[in-house]
């Protein structure tokens, strides 16, 4: 897989799946921009890790829900590197995945949905919108959006979170149509429950065991399991694939 020299932005990359994705790109020779919101120290750890492995990386702070902040970050990337080849929209608004404390449908408020839509679709929208002129100008680019397999199999119905991610899938497919003629692909990766991550800390043993039991491959995903499909969409192997979604959940969802 030749990602050598590809300028790659991973949002929300200071921890969890984002950090693993950033490291994986670093290992493949990409220049990785580790975006973070607050956790500067953790972002620095990811950058250090990549550099220690002989890769190249830099950390950049930006709130993906803030249009201006995202535009400034992207402009800075292009100024420093001359291009932006790959974006991975991984950042998500803070959310507690606790099956026992989740809100039931009748307790949901419209604001709950709005917050997730703002964070999930809004964040991805800001990043996609900001890189669009550059990718069009360079006759190509890769956009990869992180979803969840709960869209297809809401084992635990996190209403607001999953609804927003489902919206992001629709956004991605529509984007793929308009951007295809410019040589830009838009694809999605939908992980199953991934452990351990900060978000999944409150998803306790019993639920994880239950999901593992239902999963053909007999375990829940670990952060490293997710990276391969993201790298694939960024690689030349996926040059003619767009508007697709890969489930990375050990076969829990098949479609």
């Amino acid at each position, binding site marked *: 897989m030749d990602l050598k*020299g590809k*300028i790659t932005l991973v949002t929300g990359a200071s921890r969890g799946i984002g950090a693993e994705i950033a490291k994986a790109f670093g290992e493949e020779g990409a*220049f990785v921009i580790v975006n973070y919101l607050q956790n500067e120290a953790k972002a620095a750890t990811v950058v250090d890790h990549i550099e220690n492995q002989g890769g*190249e990386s*830099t950390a950049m702070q930006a709130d993906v829900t803030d249009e201006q902040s995202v535009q400034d970050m992207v402009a800075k990337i*292009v*100024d*420093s*590197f*001359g*291009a932006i080849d790959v974006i991975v929209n991984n950042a998500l608004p803070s959310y507690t995945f606790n099956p026992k404390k989740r809100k039931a449908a009748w307790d949901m408020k419209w604001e709950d949905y709005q917050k997730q839509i703002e964070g999930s679709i809004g964040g991805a929208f800001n990043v996609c919108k900001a890189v669009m002129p550059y990718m069009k100008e360079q006759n190509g680019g890769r956009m990869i959006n992180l979803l969840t397999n709960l869209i297809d199999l809401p084992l635990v119905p996190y209403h607001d979170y999953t609804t927003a991610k489902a919206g992001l899938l629709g956004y991605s497919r529509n984007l793929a149509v308009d951007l295809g003629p410019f040589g830009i692909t838009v694809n999605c990766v939908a992980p199953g429950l991934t452990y351990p991550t900060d978000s999944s800390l409150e998803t306790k043993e019993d639920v994880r065991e239950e999901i593992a039991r239902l999963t053909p491959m007999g375990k829940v995903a670990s952060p490293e399991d997710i990276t391969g499909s993201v790298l694939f969409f960024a690689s030349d192997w996926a040059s003619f694939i767009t508007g697709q979604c890969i489930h990375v959940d050990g076969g829990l969802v098949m479609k």
Partner: protein
Amino acid sequence: MRQQTKQMIEQLLSFIIYRGSTGKDFQELALTLFSYQFEHNLPYKKYCQKRRKTPLTVKHWQEIPAMPIQAFKELPLACESTRTPEAVFLTSGTTNAEKRGQNIHPALAVWDGSMMTAFKQFVLPEQQTAAIYVLSPAEDLNQHSSLSRYLTNAVKHFGTEDSRFFFKEKGLDMEALTTALKVKESRREPVLLMGASSAYVHFIDYCTERDLTFHLAEGSRIFDTGGFKRQSRELSREELYESFSRVFDVGPNSFINMYGMTELSSQIYEVTAQSPRFEKVNPDWVKTLVLDPETLRPVKAGEVGVLAHYDLANWNSCMAVLTEDMGFETENGFVLLGRVEGSEARGCSIAVDELMRANGK
């Protein structure tokens, strides 16, 4: 002048003049200079960004994008902007009178350092001074010519007291040159002749018409530079060397050809006493790449391509310059094949030149 520039100049000078003692190799200094030029030369920065080459992505000097010489005509290429540069050198502009390439030198210290260090190495390796007779204009006659600066420097720093310029306001004073050469000849004193190739062509014609020949003393050298543009009749280098031998009665090891470009700040030498015929050799702070015209990536060793020169002395504009000259790499340098020849378009679609002619442009 910004502090960073002063430091850059210091580093370059010490590499060029006292190389080795700084411990910096070409690679390291080239990358430092690239970062400097990327930061301060905006058109060059844009050119590099378009090629995805930035200080963060370039790891080796060979990856530094070479700026086409055309850009020196179209754009002001300068890291240090000043209203009173020490010199602005212009290309002779034989092809397009209006657009002449320019290379701005806020300070000439590095240019001079480069010129003199290489001059010593290639032209006067075994002596401190020489009697220099110059056939082309000195600096006072042509302030915008890098060649004139070069010749004036040579006489000032390496010429004995009887060194002279024979090019006056009305042109080359061939009679005076003839007389002076005859004097040298009778005294059996060696002389270093210096000038543009075209100036020699005129002088050789003059001598041939009058059946004049000289028998210059042992140790005399004929230094010429440049190709043959429209001013004089076309001569190949081989023919030129033959006519030097015939007119001046000097041996095959007495020729020095200097290859210089306004767009660069250093010169490259062909010294027949030091290298195989036609091989041009760079000083240590200049490297030349041979690129495939189709991809602008280096060709395999020995294959013909278009030349790009990486000249550390060219600190204010662009260190890396893409020429329109074809050539190929040799063991110690390269062989210059000359300008790429235009060809008539294959198609019936009208070509740029024809249309431009039609429009009187």
